[in-house]
């Protein structure tokens, strides 16, 4: 399963962190540096496995913990309607 950013969202990276505007509900979100790294990959679309591999290259943490964290993050983005599944 791949995930990508929902169309029509506005976002910009300022000082290494992404600010995301969802005009549908007038919500403003901010991602920390790890979240922003993941957001970069989601622009083109990625699976959880691909995201984990990318984050692992930057932050050498235990794969099991990292996978759990990435899954939680993806669920959070999905619940906030910021990303969608495809393929």
């Amino acid at each position, binding site marked *: 399963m791949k995930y990508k950013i929902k169309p029509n969202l506005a976002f910009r990276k300022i000082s290494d962190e992404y600010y995301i505007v969802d*005009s549908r509900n007038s919500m*403003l979100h901010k991602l920390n540096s790890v979240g922003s790294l993941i957001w970069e990959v989601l622009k083109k679309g990625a699976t959880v496995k691909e995201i984990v591999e990318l984050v692992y290259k930057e932050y050498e943490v235990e794969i099991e913990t990292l996978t759990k964290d990435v899954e939680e993050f993806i669920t959070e983005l999905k619940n906030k309607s910021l990303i969608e599944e495809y393929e």
Partner: protein
Amino acid sequence: MNEGFKNLSDELFWQSYNNRVPLYSLLEVTSRCNFDCIHCYIPQEVRRKNDELSTKEIMSCLEEIKTLGGLYTVFTGGEPLLREDIFTLLEFAKKLNFVVILFTNGSLINKETVSKIISCGVDKVEISLYGNKHFHEKFVRRKDVFSQIVSGIKMLKHNNIDVCIKSVLTKYNWNQKKFLENFAYSLGVRYKFDIICTPRNNGDIIPTTFIVEEKKLVKLLKQYNLTQVDIKKDFTTHILCSAGRNIVAVSSRGEVYPCIQFPYFLGSIKKEKFVKIWRRSFSIVEKLEETKQYQQCLNCDILQYCRRCPGISFIQTRTLYGCDTVAKLLACVTRKTVEKTAV
């Protein structure tokens, strides 16, 4: 969230302010207009010229603003819907992941334009309305346009577009405030107003004489609790705004300004890259922040009530450090109101 910020919006504002990111850009895509509003800041002689930026020039500018971190962009005019390529531009801005806001007089909104506004992904449409049919048409000096505008607002609202009705309230349409509030409410859209009438960009101060009478201003200031003195700790943030720091405007001819109401020429995107103009223009911010230059303000006894606009001051005095007489008038009224309330 970092400490010291009221909320995330506040944090975004200050991050962009401190890092000089053009977070808010306003593109005046045309000076042409099918209305002739009495208070318009664009002088008649400019409104008639048709030397506006090309599609490609606007697209390049948007790309550059994006690379600098620009997030919110407003398409305004003149009347932006008069541009044949307006939907191409709106769609392009949306593809660059901007928050896209369209300012329009609403007269050209019909079934077809609504459908295009939706497909472009425009985030918000702000429509100017100055009163009921009689007052509005007198204000914009065009007949039989009111019903078309109302129909446009209804269509946009029906299609879940975020719509806002806005007005400049002057002594000529002051009595329309209640009507406009109720009308917006009945249509289920937001309403906002401004009481500042700015001089035209060529220095013509006639629009500033349209400001509502003092008695009415006092009533308004009390109603909206605007009497509270808002003295910032820092003189520079009190006397200035964020124009040129995280706000930028580009005129229909490609001139870059710190704000559309602050026509201090920073460069032209017809001659240079926007990024180059923006980076070089930090000197304007440094000039504006030379506190000691504001002797007139520092010696003014209503400074603490004054919400001076550097743009209006610049148009009026052609200097960076002069007095904004419109703000001064309001400051005088504010002081009187505060003093009366205190007694």
